[in-house]
């Protein structure tokens, strides 16, 4: 049996008075990688643990491959998990750790060892069989944890912030490895992170959570270009959220009036009228105030920070203070300068309310 789909139907989890997950419904397709993304305490880990069966839902139903598993314990679900702390058994060597799953399922020693060696090989860990977890580097420990979770070929594989104990450089490589493995083996993966770059980079779909509820579920591209609400617009990519007006709509394109400046953006089915608009930090270009092409916004630079590959500005405009990122290509301006901000033609989205 291959990878399975996952359905949450109206799932709620309460801890006493705290509602950690509130009436959440979603579906993950078989063979896809879905990330749960959100600020601290929004209920990501709790959601993941309910998929694993480590917490039982207070309300609602959980289906794996269409079968109701709501009341099954972790040991009875075909789901494995890579823990944030890896949770390798410190008193067992690498091989015994990876063999643990098959042995618990009643598979004979020889066959379990063979299954374990296969997965260890897949993760480039052949030859480490007799090492104890304490004798491995953080990256190696992480791969042992992945091998251990893979060896049972679960319907669903879960990751809880798997990269948080790795250094920044290793993080990028490991996340690519996980994505490649997921695609090669066609696994259904649910992945928790609070790093949005990581989420956008590896996912087929991202579920943004906020206050125990789902704020938006979409592909990375859609999430960026068409945030469903203020929270998502604000949370993803540091967008500036400003007040504007839809002046007119032609087909799929709306013409917006932003404090007098006229810009175009996808209409997303909205009618003319006042609207909230998300401006990505890189949606605007800085030009000298004297430039002939009028339009855009004028503003005064409050702060300018040099970050090597780009500049970050805070600019006072009629729309309010805007956060703008521009290439550090030698045309930087300093604090106090008067500038004109021109739309680049992307990175502006109206937010449906």
């Amino acid at each position: 049996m291959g990878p399975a789909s996952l359905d949450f139907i109206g799932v709620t989890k309460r801890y006493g008075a705290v509602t950690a997950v509130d009436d959440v419904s979603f579906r993950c397709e078989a063979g896809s990688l879905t990330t749960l993304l959100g600020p601290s305490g929004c209920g990501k880990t709790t959601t993941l643990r309910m998929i694993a069966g480590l917490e039982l839902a207070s309300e609602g139903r959980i289906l794996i491959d269409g079968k109701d598993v709501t009341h099954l314990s972790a040991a009875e679900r075909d789901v494995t998990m890579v823990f944030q702390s890896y949770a390798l058994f410190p008193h067992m060597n690498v091989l015994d750790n990876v063999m643990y799953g098959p042995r618990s399922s009643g598979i004979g020693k020889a066959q379990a060892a063979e299954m374990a060696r296969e997965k260890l090989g897949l993760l480039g860990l052949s030859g480490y069989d007799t090492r104890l977890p304490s004798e491995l580097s953080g990256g190696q420990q992480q791969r042992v944890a992945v091998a251990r979770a893979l060896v049972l070929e679960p319907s669903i594989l879960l990751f809880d912030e798997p990269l948080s104990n790795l250094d920044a450089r290793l993080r990028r490589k490991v996340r690519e490895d996980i994505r490649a493995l997921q695609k090669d083996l066609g696994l259904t993966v649910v992945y928790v992170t609070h790093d949005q770059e990581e989420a956008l980079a590896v996912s087929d779909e991202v579920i943004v959570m906020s206050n125990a509820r789902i704020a938006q579920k979409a592909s990375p591209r859609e999430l960026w270009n068409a945030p469903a609400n203020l929270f998502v617009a604000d949370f993803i990519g540091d967008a500036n959220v400003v007040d504007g007006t839809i002046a007119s709509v032609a087909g799929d394109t709306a013409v917006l009036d932003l404090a007098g400046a006229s810009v175009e953006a996808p209409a997303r089915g909205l009618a003319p009228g006042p609207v909230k608009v998300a401006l990505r930090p890189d949606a605007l270009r800085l030009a000298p105030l004297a430039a002939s092409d009028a339009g855009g916004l004028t503003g005064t630079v409050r702060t300018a920070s040099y970050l090597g590959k780009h500049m970050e500005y805070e600019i006072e405009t009629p729309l309010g203070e805007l956060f703008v990122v521009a290439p550090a290509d030698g045309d930087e301006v300093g604090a106090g300068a008067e500038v004109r901000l021109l739309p680049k033609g992307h990175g502006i989205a109206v937010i449906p309310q």
Partner: protein
Amino acid sequence: MPRRSKARHRPPTDRIAMIDRFPVILAAAGLIGPAALAYHADDGTRLAGALAAGHAAPALGCLALVLAAGASFAGAQRASALFGAVGGMLALVAMILAGFFPALAAGIGFADNEVGRPIGPGAGILALALVALFAGAIARFGAFRNDRFVSVSVITIGTLVVLFVFWPVLRMLSEAFQGESEARAAVFLDRLLQGDIWSLACLWSTARCGVAPNTVILGILAAFFSTTLALGLALLAVRTNVRFPRAFDALAILPIITPPFVIGLALIVLFGRTGLVTGALWDWFGIPRSRWLYGLPGVLLAQVLSQVPLSFLILVGSLKALSPTLEEAAQTLRATRTRILMTVTLPLLLPAIANTYLLAFVESLADFGNPLVLGGNFEVLSTKIFFAVVGAQHEPGRAAVLAMVLLAFTLAAFLLQMRLLANASFVTVSGKGDSGVPAALPKGLPAGLWSVIIPWIGLTIAVYSIVLIGGFVKDIGRFDMTPTLDHLRTGFLVEWTDNGLFWAGSAWDSFWTTVLVSAAAAPLTAIIGLLTAYVLARQKFHGRRSLEFLTMLSFAIPGTVIGVAYILAFNVPPVEITGTGFILIACFVFRNMPVGVRAGIAALSQIDPSLDEASATLRARTGRTLVAVVLPLMKPAIVATLIFSFVHAMTAVSAIIFLVTARYNMATAYIVGRVEAGEYSLAIAYCAFMIVFMIVAIATIRLLVGEARLGRRGSEAIAAGGH
């Protein structure tokens, strides 16, 4: 298509459809047990006899077991669970009715007489099987989050704790209200409001105080002195650069393996009217011999001597756990050494100090051996209880009232301690080893401490020297130091005869009984204690707090109280076990179980719960997780619990002095007998023999269980935090 191995192993959901061996095994045990062993203890009737006599309880029990097992064989798991839950429940209710409410049971035809009959081991096995059957069955219906292992563990442990802790105490309380008169409250109040319990006359006259004030005053003083000395010792050990010799560690364990009254005995030899020091003082300085030792001073001295090492261990641990960063911060704020000690170190240590104090207080209240040996006319509750039971006028009702008073004191201290520990969270013990240098002690303090501590250490060494050599000289009481093996020979002579070894010594009987009972109790204590720790620390279920409270409660019950409670509860049907070895084992298991629970909870808090969870997601049921993952990581706690319960069983006096019989005499009871007969040398020789034996036993336990193998960075790997 991605690569996948050929065999897909999918045990999960279809397990439920397989034959479930659990009810089958229980049925086998529950039927074979009473078939082979007595169902009724009085006439030895087995299961067949009980069924033939038409008793409802065994019949219902057999029916429930057979139906549950049969349904499981047939693959009907839900039916099996239904039979287990309903049938098991009904059978247990019938057993409880027949056992505890015989009059009522006889009325509805459940029992054949109105006074009830003692149950035998067979009935005990049947009852346990039914409890497990019932617990396993209700887990199928969603109890304990469907986790049968947890369900069976919690319900079985709960039943046993209720039977062996809660019920005896309850039984004892009810005894306090029973007397000649029908007016229960009057009987109780009359017993309670006696002058010899509450009188405070000693405060203003030469008359004696009641036992309750005596006990409390002794407890307060013993706790004060032992905590103060231990704190001084701990400051010297941790905060000065004196290297305490390694022998010091051994000294710390000695009091744990010495029978509690031995120190009192050694003090008599040193300071009694004819003691070594007393004699020397008379000979050299003309200080007259006196009986000052017998009474409050002697008991206090003995209790402080035995309590200091334990308090020292606790305080050293807390002192080491204090992060030096805080003291460094104070130093950078220009605080003087004295100011740092008074405003940072001691306040942070305060919860630990208070905890040590309360622990010493409870220990003093519960102590029976030293007041018995040294008390003289100074009576405390524990000895008074003892004499009310074994004395000339056998007064169980009065003993029960005294026991209630004692229990009230220890419970109050215990509850205070619980609150204190609950609020003590600001003593942060971070897993990360904070580096930093703790502040030095104020100038002059170390010297002052040494001047008190050195004589104290000298006294401790003198006391233990007496214990170690006293048995091997002719008469240490009269300072006749001619070496001899006579005393050892009297107690522990082994002869070769034609029929093989002959244990000729007079002490062998009690010694072997003690060893056997202790060796049987230790693993049981470890299993029950650590299992309880596991379900308390790692599982969520309704009634978790009550179970925790019940297990901790038995910690607060002094041995004398348990002793009285046991003889009152267990020398009548249905569980009539006084005079058997079983009651001794049960007594030790449930008295020492809280230590296992605490050690287990402490060990589990060091083990990242995601290890258990990882095991669960890898298809391991709770039982396997416990055996394969948790227990190997808890080895130090297992060793500690085994050692503690074994040693405590070997050296306990207070509870078992009520429970021993001629057939099952225990070493400590035998030694107390020798002391009362004035045979000090034999008593001391016996103690020395036991101490040596226990040291060997401890080394053996360490060797057998071994240490956890975790590699060089092991401790980090276990403690690696979760979220």
